[in-house]
């Protein structure tokens, strides 16, 4: 089964178009503060797309993804004195969070559905408590300062340059995830999400499929965490909190977890709404909650549904329809 060159190319073009084009516009017109906020948004996009491998692709909702995001952040923060280049730092962050995800993944393998969400939440809180009580990890103040280490030998501490570092990491992650999404592995995950019993009857070991997507989601979360510690300049316990785990699930569902780009759209809208509400009112929670309520009730499959309603062209049932259109 040779993979046609056209497929690689089409995926690369799509990812570049969807990521690099808007990034170029942002970099051109955004103010210094705007660039900082957008860098945070892009990091949330990476975190959300990683989490969606679990929540959207495999249909297993974990309420403890902040534990891996925080592991990546603290891994980078702990190595802050060693002046390692970013290529090494981020790889170590990914490895650290992948190992933690593997361990907890094996432990929580048997739990399914809501119980999986509950046990991952409890483990997430345990990790939060361990870090918070630990003096070596800076307890409530966290570990600081975390400098933005060099990329390919270049200094990237300037906010706009760091924005492009984060955007290029997103491009790579999005490309890899896009390939996986359209690979046979991606199809087996979609099958498991749809009907685990049927998937087993075809001989596919769903325990392994779940574990691999769990570790994959954890690793990408760790990568985002590693970048976030450099963006913020420190690693703090709030990066491991239950609130963050809840928000990232919210973002995946908000954007539309059955769409490849859904999580990214969710991250943009959620952060954009929270940012503007915070500066406009003193009751952000109230308005943010109301907005989420409307979306949850009115749009079962998230914002992606909004896009379908605005698509005027009638979609023909093309023979090789991409799973995106199908899985609305």
């Amino acid at each position, binding site marked *: *089964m040779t993979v046609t060159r056209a497929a690689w190319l089409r995926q690369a073009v799509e990812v570049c178009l969807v990521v690099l084009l808007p990034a170029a516009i942002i970099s051109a017109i955004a103010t210094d503060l705007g660039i900082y906020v957008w860098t945070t948004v892009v990091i949330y996009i990476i975190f959300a797309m990683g989490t969606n491998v679990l929540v959207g692709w495999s249909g297993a909702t974990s309420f403890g993804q902040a534990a891996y995001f925080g592991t990546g952040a603290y891994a980078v923060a702990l190595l802050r004195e060693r002046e390692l280049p970013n290529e090494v730092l981020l790889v170590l962050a990914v490895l650290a969070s992948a190992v933690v995800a593997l361990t907890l993944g094996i432990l929580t393998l048997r739990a399914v559905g809501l119980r999986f969400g509950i046990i991952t939440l409890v483990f997430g809180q345990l990790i939060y408590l361990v870090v918070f009580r630990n003096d070596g990890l800076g307890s409530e103040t966290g570990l600081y300062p975390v400098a933005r280490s060099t990329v390919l030998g270049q200094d990237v501490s300037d906010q706009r340059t760091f924005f492009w570092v984060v955007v290029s990491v997103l491009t790579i992650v999005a490309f890899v995830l896009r390939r996986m999404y*359209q*690979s046979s592995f991606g*199809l087996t995950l979609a099958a498991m999400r749809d009907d685990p019993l049927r998937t087993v009857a*075809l*001989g596919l070991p769903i325990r392994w499929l779940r574990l691999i997507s769990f570790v994959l989601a954890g690793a990408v979360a760790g990568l985002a965490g590693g970048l976030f510690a450099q963006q913020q300049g420190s690693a703090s316990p709030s990066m491991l909190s239950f609130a963050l785990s809840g928000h990232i699930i919210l973002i995946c569902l908000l954007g539309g977890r059955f769409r490849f780009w859904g999580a990214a759209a969710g991250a943009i809208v959620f952060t954009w709404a929270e940012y503007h509400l915070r500066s406009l009112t003193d009751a952000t929670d109230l308005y943010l909650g109301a907005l989420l309520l409307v979306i949850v009730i009115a749009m079962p499959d998230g914002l992606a549904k909004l896009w379908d309603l605005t698509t005027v062209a009638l979609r023909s*049932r093309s*023979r*090789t329809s991409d799973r995106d259109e*199908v899985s609305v």
Partner: protein
Amino acid sequence: MTTAVLEATSVSKSFGQVHALSDVSLQIAAGETLGVIGPNGAGKSTLFGVLAGEHRASSGSVVLHGRDITGWNASRVARSGLGRTFQVPRVFTRLTAAQNVEVALVAARHRLGRMTDNLTHDRAMESAAAALLDRVGLASAAGIEAAHLGQGDRKLLELAMALGRGAHVLLLDEPTAGMGRGEARRLVEVVQDLRTVQPELAVLVTAHHMEVILALADRVVLLADGAVRVVGTPQDVAEHPETRRIYLGEDLL
């Protein structure tokens, strides 16, 4: 007697005090179709469950291609070439018919599915799936979401998936249940065509429509209260007094 492809010897299965199967033995040779008939509660579905690895036999053994698969879980049994359909058809409703078959093809090729291939532009995969759909008469439904397929088409899709999986032993659990006469006849024709295309395919089929059994089965087993009562050619079993007693309930008069 050619060597048996699938052999169950004195298989018993009880759920607590309920003895669903007691001391059932049967063999299917390559290329043979064995019909299993019996009233509701005879243990047909439990027998299927034990053979397919869904339930663990309380005692006795199951051998596939000479390998003892007793107690193997469902996915391992499926991997060793035993495909099945469900009484209530189970398909991936959110995927298209073609994609349903592609999942089976992927399961046949790799243990987990490779991360580096690309399905949306894989001509070989698409044509293989199309061929299988054509074989079960669903060629036109390739791009349709499985959720929109009727009961009968879903059963045919399950058949295509089992074949895609590379099964050489097929367990058909009441394939014509809930079907109209026309649909049932279509399915029988499809299974008969399969026998000509894949002569070595062994099929175990259960059904309530006697004509389906008569049309398909080379040999028939009558199951009642979890035990084998009669074995023989369809005609022998049909005319056997035991069959008449169990089905027509003479002894109740």
